[in-house]
């Protein structure tokens, strides 16, 4: 960090001294997010005390999080490119239904035995998620349909397919082995499914931040024309991003299947809009190009804590819905002001730099 220019830029108004050394929207909204998390947790502590902050309850929060977290990650990932994926719940249901079918189908069990059948079912579910994501991505890229529209249509197609295949009925009675593995606890306390989520978050986030794919995706979200002119692999990047969304959704489906020991179209419908809310609250820019995927996890946990606290305090779930909506609106309004501050700051800065004398040193150009 260059202190010189920061200092000079902060002389104007005293409030500027409150701002971080380098002004950028991402940093500001992240500060707000963590301030919000801290405040909400403090508020919950004030109201509920140990009724909320006890090990059992905290573990329970972790246990309830996995599918929601995976779906939110998928939603956040789709927002990186400035898109959105409304089909994730339908994909999760469809994948779960197929896995449930395979796990409970007599001929499969007879031919493969229970363990192999579970493995096959999981792979098949993943394949469904990947296939659905591929389809979304290809339609978006090839036909140029906006992602919102594509995934609205494909959501209906996938949910319709799931309903059609099952007649709307649930499939139950998963093998105990499967249910036990997913709902097991690591070290006896931490839910295995949450560990899985943690691993996936770290892996996806690390991969996106350090891979050609991730760089391309963020750059595409920032400016898709420049990405095209910059020779980035646009088509494959978008297709891969929706494929990963689909895969994450199918994982969420598998987790739900284990948690509920059954699967049916419509399980988790409520998560769809909540996942959008989480992603935006976590700082993912719906216009694309900005945000940190890893921030989604604390945000999901935050909302889950609120949800849990509301249940414990037996408050109306609609009050929770209202508070989330209001929080989101407030958060976006704040970001609006941050953007203004940043633009003003950069304008002042650039003018200052332009007026500075020309640089004289330089290394000769090499190949």
């Amino acid at each position, binding site marked *: 960090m260059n202190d010189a220019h920061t200092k000079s830029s902060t002389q104007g108004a005293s409030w500027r001294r409150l701002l971080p050394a380098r002004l950028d929207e991402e940093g500001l909204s992240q500060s707000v997010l963590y301030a919000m998390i801290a405040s909400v947790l403090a508020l919950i502590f004030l109201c509920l005390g140990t009724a909320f902050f006890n090990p059992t309850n905290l573990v329970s929060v972790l246990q309830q999080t996995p599918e929601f977290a995976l779906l939110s990650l998928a939603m956040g990932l789709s927002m990186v490119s400035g898109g959105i994926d409304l089909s994730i719940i339908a994909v999760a249901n469809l994948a779960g239904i197929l896995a449930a079918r395979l796990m409970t189908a007599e001929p499969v069990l007879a031919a493969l035995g229970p363990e192999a059948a579970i493995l096959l079912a999981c792979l098949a579910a993943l394949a469904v998620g990947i296939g659905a994501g591929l389809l979304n991505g290809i339609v978006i890229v090839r036909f140029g349909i906006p992602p919102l529209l594509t995934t609205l249509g494909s959501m209906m197609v996938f949910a319709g397919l799931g309903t059609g295949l099952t007649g709307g009925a649930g499939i139950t009675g998963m093998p105990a082995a499967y249910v036990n593995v997913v709902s097991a606890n690591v070290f006896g306390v931490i839910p295995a499914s949450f560990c899985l989520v943690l691993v996936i978050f770290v892996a996806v986030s690390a991969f996106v931040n350090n891979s050609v794919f991730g760089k391309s995706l963020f750059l595409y979200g920032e400016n898709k024309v420049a990405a095209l002119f910059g020779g980035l692999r646009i088509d494959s990047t978008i297709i891969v991003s929706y494929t990963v969304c689909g895969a994450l959704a199918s994982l969420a489906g598998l987790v739900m299947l284990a948690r509920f*020991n059954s699967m049916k179209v419509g399980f988790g419908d409520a998560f769809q809009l909540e996942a959008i809310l989480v992603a935006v609250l976590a700082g993912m820019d719906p216009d694309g190009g900005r945000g940190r995927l890893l921030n989604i996890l604390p945000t999901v946990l935050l909302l889950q804590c609120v949800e849990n606290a509301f249940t414990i305090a037996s408050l109306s779930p609609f009050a929770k819905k209202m508070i989330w909506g209001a929080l989101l609106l407030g958060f976006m309004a704040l970001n609006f002001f941050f953007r203004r501050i940043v633009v003003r700051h950069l304008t002042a800065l650039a003018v200052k730099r332009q007026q500075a004398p020309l640089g004289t040193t330089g290394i000769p150009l090499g190949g």
Partner: protein
Amino acid sequence: MITRRTVLVGGAGMLALGAASRAAFGAESGKKLEIVMCAKQEGISWFDDMRKGVEQFGADFGANAYQIAPETGDPAKQAQMVESLIAKRVDAILVVPNDPQSIKPILEKARKAGIIVISHEAQSLAGVSNYDVEAFKNEDFGALMFDNLAKAMGGEGKYAGIVGALTMETHMQWFKAGLEHAKKTYPKLEFVLSEPLEDNNDEKTALDKVNETLKKYPDLKGFFGCSVSGSSMAALAVEKLRRKDIKVVGLGLPSINGVYLEEGYQAEAQCWRPADAGYAAAYVAYKALKGEPIEAGIDLKRPGYDKVTIENGVVYGSATLVLTKDNYQDYKF
């Protein structure tokens, strides 16, 4: 730095808020038994009445009994709620599941945690929950519905019917038992559909489907509805067509179906009182918590539950209410 300041300001606000909300929640209930009903969905009149029963029980027995429910009928949300209740270590969980199968693992977990679990409207959960409390035997309820239908139709004619969904356990039990019963008892009745219609418990869907069916089968003489939305919308459709010759029976609430009973668009409605069911379920949980015996013939202190029968972990009352033009006003739910 912005973080620190925000936290400070936020913290001050929260202190105020926290104090206020603490006052609002009231003091912790201390040693009272905590019995929680997790209903299907918030904001529905059926469960509002059930809440009365649960709270009445709390008042009668000095227990901390209350009801919660998710804002949507999504089984995943309800499962999360029950899970939170387990973590809260309540003494008993009463549950009216949106999807009995999906909540099974969570109820098993609750049992493992030593919580008494009582289900309602979910016979398939018998054995998973400590007890499943039913207002009646579903088979009897279905047969009664078809008896009423036959009576209204004069024992002959074509009829059709609607359920919440073909995948809804209780509705299908009523329908199957009733159809079986009707085939044996009323040979002149004819069910014109291969399977009942589905309304997904949505009034608009029900209305459109019933309407379409009445148009397609103009010679229909009777209609049953296993869902409240189905039977009330069937009555409304009949009213819209002014076809009082079509007799509608089915599950109904005094508050919703009363008007149709009054005006003669619905012949009879039958139901059970949600408040009583809630009360009875809470009572069973209470007895289980107190270690009192739960056996056939005990009195759950509510009409219809004064002499329950027990079979395979299911507690049956005989709390069927048949609502007619004359008696629906006696009930306020």
